[in-house]
């Protein structure tokens, strides 16, 4: 438990990262009030949790890193926030992110880019880059992010923290501003597996407000296993391509060795449809986004740009000026792939491919594999601006993470080493609703991996 002033002081020390969107003055005031009101019996009593700006909170604005929701105050809390508050946690401000969670570097925020805590010339990853950076900088023990294609695991990997994306349907999406509804899940960052897991446990479980949330009890936290005896860990060969960064490969090989030493058996497996994952994702996610973002039209809330009397002009100017270029690009792509005459060729085929990708995982798990282990990202954190002019190369930084979203599986990234000081993340992908098994393996690896050593 931390007192309100100490929390605010820690956050103000890392102001230069531009990771926090909430003005410090507002934050101090709110933290004092929240700490006074927090439930002392809650399992997270007094724990400050920073929250990505696309998760609705009654405290602070919820702008999704976008001009189009600048100053927007939600009249309600997301279910995950309600559960955090019930557990005694305090909301330690809203974190910067790529606009509407579309991006892999947190450079696509209307409120400026977030700096990597270890190298200000680099990006923290994205889209939940603000949350990852605050946890990595030690300003908060845990933070909420959201995932559609890797937006928690990828920045966790870049920043050297733990990031978990639960099974689709494990955590309510009520109050998570929708991007790709069939892929979106709220995820958690922590400095340790345990910090992240206990926050995840609190926010998980059934919710009558989300029809896609499974009717299940909250996740029960596993204990740290004595060994990995009996665990069968699969290494999908498609995730270790020849062109993989050598440092990333070395770090993964070391992690695998460390798991074997704890008794895990390891085998190579294949997920043959992996090469189609990124193109499939970049049809389905924009399609859903084009519809989800239709409500931002300047009519009911958010700023109106050029309040013209002509309705179409109002839509055009509000959406044209309110959305940044990456969001506009995806809305256009999504609109195109859903259009009559193109639907079958794009959206329908992408859904068919999605089913094949999910089947790949089932095939592997059906053959006795408990968990998969892969690199989280092909490279450590890249330089700011490096991929801004090349959307495809930016999209490919999610190449190892999008599959878990497409298949709805739980996955997480944990630090497994460094290269020239930059963190490298290793990824576990688990079976649906078996987060506990995945967490056990992560606990075991975390215990032995020298995460800050050069690989």
């Amino acid at each position, binding site marked *: 438990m931390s007192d309100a002033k100490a929390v605010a002081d820690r956050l103000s020390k890392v102001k230069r990262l531009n990771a926090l969107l909430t003005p410090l003055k507002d934050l101090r005031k709110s933290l004092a009030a929240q700490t006074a009101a927090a439930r002392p019996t809650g399992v997270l009593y007094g724990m400050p949790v920073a929250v990505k700006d696309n*998760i*609705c909170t009654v405290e602070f604005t*919820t702008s*999704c890193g976008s001009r189009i*929701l600048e100053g*927007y105050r*939600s*009249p*309600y809390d*997301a279910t995950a926030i309600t559960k955090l508050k019930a557990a005694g946690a305090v909301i330690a401000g809203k974190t910067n992110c790529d606009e509407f969670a579309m991006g892999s570097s947190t450079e696509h925020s209307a409120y400026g880019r977030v700096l990597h805590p270890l190298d200000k010339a680099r990006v923290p990853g994205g889209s939940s880059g603000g949350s990852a950076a605050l946890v990595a900088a030690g300003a908060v023990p845990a933070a909420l992010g959201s995932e559609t294609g890797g937006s928690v695991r990828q920045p966790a990997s870049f920043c050297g923290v733990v990031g978990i994306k639960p099974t689709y349907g494990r955590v309510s*999406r*009520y*109050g*998570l*501003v*929708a991007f*790709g*509804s*069939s892929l979106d899940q709220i995820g958690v960052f922590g400095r340790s597996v345990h910090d992240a897991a206990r926050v995840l446990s609190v926010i998980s479980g059934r919710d*009558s*407000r*989300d*029809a*896609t949330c499974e009717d299940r009890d909250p996740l029960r936290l596993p204990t740290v296993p004595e060994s990995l005896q009996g665990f069968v860990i699969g290494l999908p060969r498609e995730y270790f391509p020849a062109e993989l960064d050598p440092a990333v490969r070395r770090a993964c090989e070391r992690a695998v060795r460390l798991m074997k030493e704890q008794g895990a058996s390891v085998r190579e497996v294949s997920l043959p449809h992996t090469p189609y994952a990124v193109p499939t994702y970049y049809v389905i996610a924009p*399609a*859903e986004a*084009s*519809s989800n*973002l*239709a*409500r931002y*039209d300047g*009519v*009911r*809330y958010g700023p109106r740009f050029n309040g013209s*009397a002509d*309705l*179409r002009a109002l*839509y055009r100017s509000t959406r044209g000026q309110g959305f940044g270029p990456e969001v506009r690009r995806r809305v256009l792509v999504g*609109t195109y792939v*859903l*259009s*009559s005459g193109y*639907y079958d060729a794009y*959206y329908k085929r992408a859904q068919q491919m999605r089913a094949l990708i999910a089947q790949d995982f089932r095939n592997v798990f059906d053959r006795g594999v408990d968990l998969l282990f892969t690199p989280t990202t092909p490279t450590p954190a890249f330089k700011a601006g490096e991929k801004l002019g090349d959307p495809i190369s930016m999209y490919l930084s999610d190449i190892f993470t999008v599959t878990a979203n497409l298949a709805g599986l739980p996955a997480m990234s944990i630090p497994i080493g460094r290269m020239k000081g930059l963190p490298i993340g290793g990824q576990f992908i688990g079976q649906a609703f078996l987060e506990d098994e995945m967490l056990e393996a992560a606990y075991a690896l975390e215990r032995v991996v020298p995460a800050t050593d050069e690989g």
Partner: protein
Amino acid sequence: MAGWETVIGLETHVQLRTRSKMFCGCSTAFGAAPNTHVCPVCLGLPGALPVPNGAAIGLAVRGALALGCTVHPRSIFARKNYFYPDLPKGYQISQFDQPLATNGTLSFLSSERGIVNATIVRLHIEEDAGKSIHDRFAKATAVDLNRSGVPLIEIVSGPDLRSPAEARAYLQMLKQLLEYIGISDCDMEKGSLRVDANLSIRRAGETVLNTRTEVKNINAFSFVEKALSVERDRQVALVESGGTVIQQTMLYDSKESTVRPQRSKEESHDYRYFPDPDLPPLILTPEFVAEQQSELPELPGAKRDRFVATYALSREHAAVLTASRAVADYFENVVRAPAEPQAAANWIMTEALADAKDHQEQLRVPAGALAQIIALVKGGTLSNQAAKKVFAEVAAKGGDPRTIAESLGLVQVADTNVLAGWVTDVLGAHAPEVGRYKNGETKLMAFFVGQVMRASKGKADPKLAQRVLEEKLASAP
């Protein structure tokens, strides 16, 4: 219109009678102050998610079963995307290529073709949009989102209607059926029933379907026939003068009684339907469907047939009595009270329905009281005339029919001595008629009875009066 046949299909939107909206808990009550029955879900606020209303799904299934549709165990909610200020999410949740139900029938009586079985192509669930109010503020449109998210079913007929009159008859039958099973109040004025029509014409005897137009903005029941006649006449005139019908949406203007094409700008060409990722497939178990089936009352057609068989009524009388569930139940309650069925039918079709028509469709005389009135007539206590007065009195003020009859002095006089007095007076006053009667003009008896009734101010028992008259006339010199 000689030589032309009209082909019409109707798309009817019906509001389901639920307390709360389709995907949130807000009230569906009509007439509240603008934007008071709203929440994050039906306002389409960022982050809000829809959760289906089970009660609405049940009512929709009942509607589908009543129309003889195949109810699909798995159907899909889809998003229909278009921009409009009264559509807060930028899409409407509807159903598209996998609707709730398909392939039903609605039978109705056409004045031209007799019984017509119109195909119900599909029935699906959707949410309503809000309401744009263009005439409330100068140079501004206001939006009321109370209606946003209200549950609807859309019922699509095949191109099976052959005239505007048939369209009207179909719609009346549909309305009757849906009111009967209690799933909607089908009130066009409150917007709980709305209809769009697809209309094309062809040469009599042809079977092709020509280019159709869609007629919208038919906002009252009484306009259905008129609007479609106007559009049919427009198409016929167009084709006869060498023109071609183009596929477009026509807006009906009831004040001018004209149709005008919707500006192409107002039309949305591509709704980009896709399955709503916020809503899992709608799975209906056989048990759920069976439960909805068991909730269905006897349908109008079946009830009419039973009335003919059980109560020996004519088909016409049975049709009138089963036109609404309230009247049919009333009839059966009167019969059960008990009363003789044909007498009950006669009373209801004349007095009760006339009274209801003037009093907001309320059947004001309790079934038991009507049965009593019928019994008083049958037993000779009340004349028909007197009984109607008693009926009116019970309708207006309530109370016991016999007590009212007595207090109004309407109980028939069956005392032959009293009757004899009136008879003597009448015969004395009409000597010429008495003479003609005696010369064989016996049909004058009705005249004498009438005069006795008049002299008695309706209190005389007409049958007894006739007997006394016959005796007196026979014995008179």
